[in-house]
């Protein structure tokens, strides 16, 4: 009489064990697996969701549960995010796993960004750009497309973006105990020296770690960095700056941005934008990380050195013969990385084909499917013609 019961018990335990093993095996590599369009579910009190959408310009957090692939993160904080991409219809979201508990994490991540893709009709610029940064050896956020459901309702196609935070630093650099700043675009700023007052630097460089440190500890090194950029004598410029800023990785980042026609990056049309600055804990020089690349691939004939004369950092680097030569060398490396094996064309095509059905099903996308297809065609043309254009630009300016 107990045998059926025993059998059910054993089967149940085996199944439960198998399920647990599956869940335990999930990692961030699975979450950012570019081979699939992920599915993310958010459960949030209906009043809170209505309030978030009505007050989408606010940064207020609301509690929610987030489920991915059978894994549920409870009581996470979500908020509306973005600058030009803010939307009350299809909100861009920050999912913060630690907002309501200092122990909170999900697969080792403290937070995720859900990019609503409302400023990019192709819906793949950001993801392709970040993949290219990584291909060029630049630490950049991992990204993957996902269909988002809120309280069971399909909210559309998003990109899950790995935030630049302590988890990202640990993964990319093997340590995360330094000072991380998020750059905020407030006014057109071209790396000039702002002045002696440390409070002048605070609005531009928001501390994302070590926030409780004194103003001096936080911002004196930032001030001295820009003093060096602006005041170091030409003869000692390279050495003086290299002590404060890793010039190899900086040149590499600017070279890749130049190749990708990023018109809203370090050499942006309206000043510097979309980067993080990280000062390691030792006396090692600072590094820059890219962020928010949805304005890349602006045009296939976008000038390589657009924005360079206005930006003090880039102008002075180009005035140094060694740095100038290295820069153009890195640009050609980017050309090669994009062309080799038709990488950029294949990447754009693969991403387009992967998400097209999801774009069709997206009920809240601000673009028609025809606009999506046209944007893809432009990107494809960019991928095919940009290497030759950039090669000719290098030959002209070298």
């Amino acid at each position: 009489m107990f045998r059926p019961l025993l059998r059910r018990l054993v089967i149940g335990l085996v199944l439960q064990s198998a399920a647990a093993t599956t869940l335990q095996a999930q990692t961030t590599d699975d979450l950012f697996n570019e081979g699939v369009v992920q599915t993310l579910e958010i459960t949030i009190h209906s009043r809170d969701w209505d309030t978030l959408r009505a007050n989408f310009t606010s940064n207020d957090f609301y509690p929610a549960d987030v489920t991915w692939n059978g894994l549920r993160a409870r009581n996470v904080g979500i908020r509306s995010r973005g600058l030009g991409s803010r939307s009350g219809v299809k909100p861009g979201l920050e999912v913060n796993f630690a907002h309501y508990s200092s122990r909170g994490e999900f697969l080792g991540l403290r937070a995720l960004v859900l990019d609503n893709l409302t400023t990019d009709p192709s819906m793949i610029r950001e993801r392709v750009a970040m993949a290219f940064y990584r291909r060029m050896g630049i630490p950049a956020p991992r990204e993957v497309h996902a269909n988002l459901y809120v309280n069971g309702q399909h909210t559309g196609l998003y990109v899950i973006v790995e935030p630049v935070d302590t988890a990202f630093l640990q993964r990319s650099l093997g340590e995360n105990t330094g000072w991380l700043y998020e750059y905020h675009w407030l006014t057109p700023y071209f790396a000039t020296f702002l002045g002696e007052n440390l409070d002048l630097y605070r609005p531009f460089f928001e501390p994302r770690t070590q926030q409780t440190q004194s103003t001096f500890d936080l911002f004196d090194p930032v001030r001295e960095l820009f003093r060096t950029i602006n005041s170091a004598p030409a003869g000692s410029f390279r050495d003086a700056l290299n002590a404060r800023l890793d010039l190899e990785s900086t040149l590499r980042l600017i070279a890749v941005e130049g190749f990708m026609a990023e018109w809203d990056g370090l050499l942006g049309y309206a000043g510097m934008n979309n980067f993080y600055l990280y000062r390691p804990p030792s006396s090692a020089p600072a590094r820059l990380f890219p962020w928010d690349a949805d304005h890349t691939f602006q045009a296939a004939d976008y000038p390589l050195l657009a924005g360079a004369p206005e930006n003090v950092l880039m102008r002075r680097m180009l005035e140094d013969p060694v740095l100038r030569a290295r820069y153009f060398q890195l640009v050609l490396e980017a050309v090669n990385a994009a062309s080799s094996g038709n990488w950029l064309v294949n990447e754009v095509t693969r991403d387009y084909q992967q998400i097209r059905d999801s774009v069709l099903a997206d009920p809240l996308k601000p673009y028609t499917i025809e606009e999506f297809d046209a944007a893809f065609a432009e990107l494809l043309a960019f991928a095919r013609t940009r290497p030759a254009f950039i090669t000719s630009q290098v030959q002209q300016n070298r």
Partner: protein
Amino acid sequence: MIRPTSSDIGTWRCAPHVTFRATCAVATVVLALSVPASAQQAAGTQKAESGVQWDDGSIRFGESVRIEPKVRVQADVLLWNDEGPIEDRFSWGSRRIGVNGELFNRVQFQVERAFQDDDDDDTPWRDVYADVRINRAFQVRGGRFKLPFSLERNTSRDDLDFIQRATAVRAISPARDTGVMVHGRVAMRMVEYEAGVFQHADGFDLTDDPNSWSALGAALTGRVIVSPIRDKADGPTRDLHFGVAMVRNTMPEGLNSVVGRLFDNDRFSERMNVNGQRTRLGAEGLWRGRRATIKGELLQLTDQRLQQAITGGDLSDLVQRGGYLTGIVRVFGKPGRRGQALDVAARLDRFTLGSANDTDEPFTNPRADRVAPLAKNTWTFGGNWQVHRWVRVQGNLIRETLVDSLGVRDINTDPRWTAIMRFQFAL
């Protein structure tokens, strides 16, 4: 009404006092200090001739009318705190003006207005009520006044033992409201009772959402105090009383929980979503000897959170508890506030935030089923120097500590010290 007990071991001031702008205050001080002397000189003849007299700060018209003007000015000077350089040392504690009195030995009244928002209130008017005495056992009060809950909340600000009320009292006890209350003394005056109904006990604590106000339910209140010993002139115990109280009302859906605050009024706990019945329970006790007083309270507030879960289901009740224990010693001076006196006092108070569910994983979010526990412990050491019947100087040293027992919050748990002085004129 059950009167609040003064820490100064003595006289009752049945009404809160009146305040002023600074210039008015100075003028009033001069007037108040000068008029009684001249008035008293003429009192004998005036009393005999017209029935109008100036008696001890009140004006009497014969035997049937008494009117008493009230003024209160409190100025605070922050001496030191842990927050770094102090930018603004001076602040007004309270400035109020008003009048109270009695008509025909039957009707007591009070009207009082504040000149600043010193009670988180929604109106500058404070106590505005009339109290009709049918007999000692049955009196009826109507108007706007404090709800009968908490000994310390019902103690006038100028009679407080310390510059600020205990954290739990500030957070849990309701403030003033418009309502009707019956009260009286029975059983040979040993038992006092108060029972009333009020319009919206927690209006002062609501968000600006007008829907919240319309959904706010009336508050039912009750308080009973047993006083086995009252105003005994000799013996080691002059007063002894114990009491219990309850307030119940309905809270509308929203971020409408009460919050705990630090001495500087900054919140240390965030508002939580509530919906349903709010129940306050309180117990109080007081022993007063010839030179010492010990008193304390235990308070609890529970909020239902119907349909407030992330999924739309019910959450466990939100529970906020607290209490304090105060000891006061009169170093010199006679009981009461008529002459010079010096008291030293100490108070330990505690306020905790949590939920009925105390087993699941804790979170700090406003829809957490198990709210991560958070407590604040406060030690307050003080001295009260009664310079004159109307003038008092207080000094407090305050130590506040937040306790995050499960380590879920990113908060500073180091003790915060504050030293502050208050200069008070209260007529």
